[in-house]
């Protein structure tokens, strides 16, 4: 059969221009929409990101200043050793994280996005679709890297009084570097789906578990050395030796670190015989090495995308689907027993939400990872304690214990924003199910609140108790902390449920997009303010009460009676704030949800 006459298909250049045009138009529409409909949210996000950047910058700046003051000035051997260690370890860890995040993001972009399904039915080249999605994966996985790495690099440059070349080169270095691990992640993603489509989750889980176990074991070994040796010279040498592999010359993170450290050095005024001995030239050579490797890696992604993508997509679509059977698990029976004192409608609603949560690993694994990491940190927090009982140590322990409390609260607030706030909106989409049942609307709101409060109280109380036990704080602090945890869990749950019911978004099916809207942002801001208020109200009086009690000078300056009054007053005020933050949002949420017209 003779092929029919058709116009020539776009060549590589035209196809690339069409895809860039597509991206430009989509981004420009997004930006215009943000500026007209969500200016406040956008400004808030920019402001919070700037604050986060500034906070990290201050932290790194302080750290490097400490290094210069107590370890050695730039140029000294110990300074160089320490900075090299910090840079290499930091960037090698981010190297691994970039491989995983780029691979995972590319997987969802290439194999489960409706856009890819559409593009595959057009005459677009397979490799162009892969590159289009790869660019997104690089952007999404590296913005976090940039937010973490840039304050550290700038802070070091300022402390070490680096030459101008350092500040000019650090951005090209970051860009060249991120393409290498991201390309590796992309290649692994394509290879796994192409070769082992049925086992992709298992392969990823084994790799992630291996990396976590290995990192956990390294940290454990490092901080578990005998107390008297911790932070000593021998411990330091041993730690350097243990992480020596991060300085391997073949690692792209080493090229980035070496290049940056070379660029930071001052230009020698004499004694240079060859141009290549100049630090800035050395830095440029590392940059060229990184940039060319990045290009080769991206070329490999294009090549493998061309060869594998369509077949891999088809194989994945045609993989055997396992039937997921709903079984009555033991945990369900336990939950039913736990909820038995509640009324039947609330119990049924809670059991429904519990089953939805249990069968959606995306939700509970995030909860598990964050609280697991916190637990790991709390388990090791006693490594830095001091057998003495001087006032600075007591101050430190109290401060850390309250900071731990605030951290648990802040992490909980991100979860209530991400998972609890959208619950009413999602319920609204299925409202025909609940709407036809003889259940009062306020029962639905109450059930969400109870679900969030019970679900958060258990893990948060346990974590705070663990932190307190490891820090060996006094009984008073333990009691105050447990009370604060209860207030935080009730208040944060109520704010999320109340705002969720007051500002529902029934058009959006994705909970993450609902959480990213104005209501979700407001929920996050109000939650952070509430945490700050509660922790300050309980922590400050308790802290001063304990410090003053252990200092012989306290009676001279502060009357113990007024300190006790302050402690009681602070606790009472926190209970009042907690009660208000629990009652008001819930009441307003119920009223709003009762009035709501669903259509």
């Amino acid at each position: 059969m003779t092929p029919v006459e058709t116009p020539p298909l776009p060549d590589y250049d035209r196809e690339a221009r069409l895809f860039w045009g597509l991206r430009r138009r989509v981004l420009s529409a997004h930006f215009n929409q943000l500026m007209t409909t969500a200016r406040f949210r956008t400004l808030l996000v920019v402001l919070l990101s700037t604050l986060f950047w500034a906070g990290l910058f201050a932290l790194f700046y302080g750290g490097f200043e400490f290094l210069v003051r107590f370890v050695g000035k730039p140029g000294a051997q110990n300074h160089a050793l320490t900075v090299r260690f910090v840079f290499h370890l930091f960037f090698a860890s981010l190297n691994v994280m970039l491989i995983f995040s780029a691979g995972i993001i590319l997987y969802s972009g290439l194999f489960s996005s409706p856009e890819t399904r559409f593009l595959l039915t057009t005459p677009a080249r397979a490799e162009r679709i892969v590159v289009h999605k790869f660019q997104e994966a690089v952007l999404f996985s590296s913005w976090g890297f940039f937010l973490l790495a840039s304050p550290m690099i700038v802070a070091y440059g300022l402390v070490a009084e680096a030459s101008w070349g350092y500040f000019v080169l650090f951005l090209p270095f970051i860009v060249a570097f991120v393409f290498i691990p991201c390309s590796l992640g992309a290649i692994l993603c394509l290879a796994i789906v192409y070769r082992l489509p049925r086992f992709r989750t298992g392969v990823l889980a084994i790799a992630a578990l291996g990396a976590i176990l290995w990192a956990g074991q390294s940290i454990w070994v490092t901080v578990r050395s005998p107390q008297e040796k911790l932070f000593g010279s021998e411990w330091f040498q041993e730690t350097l030796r243990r992480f020596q592999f991060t300085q391997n010359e073949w690692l792209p993170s080493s090229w980035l670190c070496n290049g940056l450290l070379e660029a930071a050095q001052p230009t020698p005024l004499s004694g240079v015989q060859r141009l290549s001995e100049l630090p800035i030239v050395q830095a440029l050579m590392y940059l060229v090495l990184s940039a060319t490797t990045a290009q080769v890696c991206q070329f490999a992604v294009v090549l493998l995308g061309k060869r594998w993508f369509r077949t891999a997509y088809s194989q994945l679509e045609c993989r055997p689907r396992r039937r997921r059977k709903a079984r009555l698990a033991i945990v369900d029976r336990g939950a039913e027993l736990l909820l038995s004192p509640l009324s039947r409608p609330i119990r049924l609603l809670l059991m429904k939400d519990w089953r939805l949560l249990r069968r959606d690993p995306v939700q509970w694994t995030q909860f598990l990872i964050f609280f697991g990491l916190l637990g790991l940190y709390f388990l090791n927090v006693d490594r830095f304690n001091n057998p003495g009982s001087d006032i600075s140590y007591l101050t430190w322990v109290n401060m850390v214990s309250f900071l731990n409390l605030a951290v648990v609260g802040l992490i909980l607030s991100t979860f209530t924003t991400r998972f609890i706030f959208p619950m009413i909106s999602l319920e609204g989409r299925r409202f025909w199910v609940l709407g036809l049942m003889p259940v009062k609307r306020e029962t639905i709101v109450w059930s969400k609140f109870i679900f969030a409060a019970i679900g958060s109280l258990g893990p948060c109380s346990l974590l705070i108790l663990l932190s307190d036990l490891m820090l060996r704080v006094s009984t008073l602090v333990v009691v105050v902390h447990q009370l604060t945890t209860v207030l935080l869990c009730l208040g944060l749950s109520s704010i999320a449920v109340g705002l969720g019911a007051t500002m529902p978004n029934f058009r959006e099916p994705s909970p993450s997009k609902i959480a990213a809207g104005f209501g979700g942002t407001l929920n996050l801001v109000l939650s952070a303010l509430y945490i700050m208020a509660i922790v300050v109200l309980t922590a400050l009086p308790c802290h001063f009460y304990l410090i003053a009690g252990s200092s012989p000078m306290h009676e001279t300056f502060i009357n113990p009676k007024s300190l006790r009054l302050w402690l009681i007053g602070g606790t009472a005020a926190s209970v009042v704030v907690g009660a208000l933050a629990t009652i008001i949002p819930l009441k307003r949420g119920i009223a709003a949800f009762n009035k709501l017209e669903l259509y």
Partner: protein
Amino acid sequence: MIEFHSVTRRYGDKVAVDALNFTIAHGELFALLGHNGAGKTTTVKMLVGLLRPERGAVRIAGYDVTASTREASQLVGYVPDQPYLYDKLSGREFLQFVGEMHGLPPQEVVAAIQRESERFSLGPFLDDLTESYSHGMKQRTVFASALIHQPQVLVVDEPMVGLDPQNIHLVKDLLRAQASAGVSVLMSTHSLDVAEKIADRIGVMHRGRLIFLGTVTELRELRGGNESLEDLFLSLTSEANAQANRPAREPTRENGE
């Protein structure tokens, strides 16, 4: 124009499409019928290049869809059952992208958008972002995108779902007009009345196999009587079901099996 040669595709152990053989000629409107899970969507996905046949070959105007995917795709206009539009593009921008991806020069795309806009009455909302479109508006835009490059082959998967009577009428007329203009149309559908009215030929799929291929009249002659396509379809598939579920006969000494 469209050829399926012994095409097989499995999902693990489950055979979704089993040794499928049929061709659709120029200007023919072919309706693919079958229950849910019969293999219609897999067939359509292999035709538009989303899935690759495990065995056999799918050809469009002589191009093997697996080996010459781009060339084959250029000839196809596809309206999927769950159409995709970029939320943050206007209908015009979307049509422009699709047109140019199919090789149309920019000036021809402008004329083609005008033509499709008139055909589907897209004018009032063509420059709005597609996120604000109703289902009907989206469906009309997707039809316009499928026809913007004047394809030789039109593939439509469940085109009537969610459309109001006026739009259903529009789609039926459109499919018939495309076939009359020489386009090969493959329509996968559950709407038996529509298939009966507009299809030149039908193919009935059951458990991955084509159990009937021909015109509705031929099916009536085969089954006897003057039943509607709905009745014919139901009796045909029930019979196929019964045959598939019948236990294999025990070997006996008498017949030497």
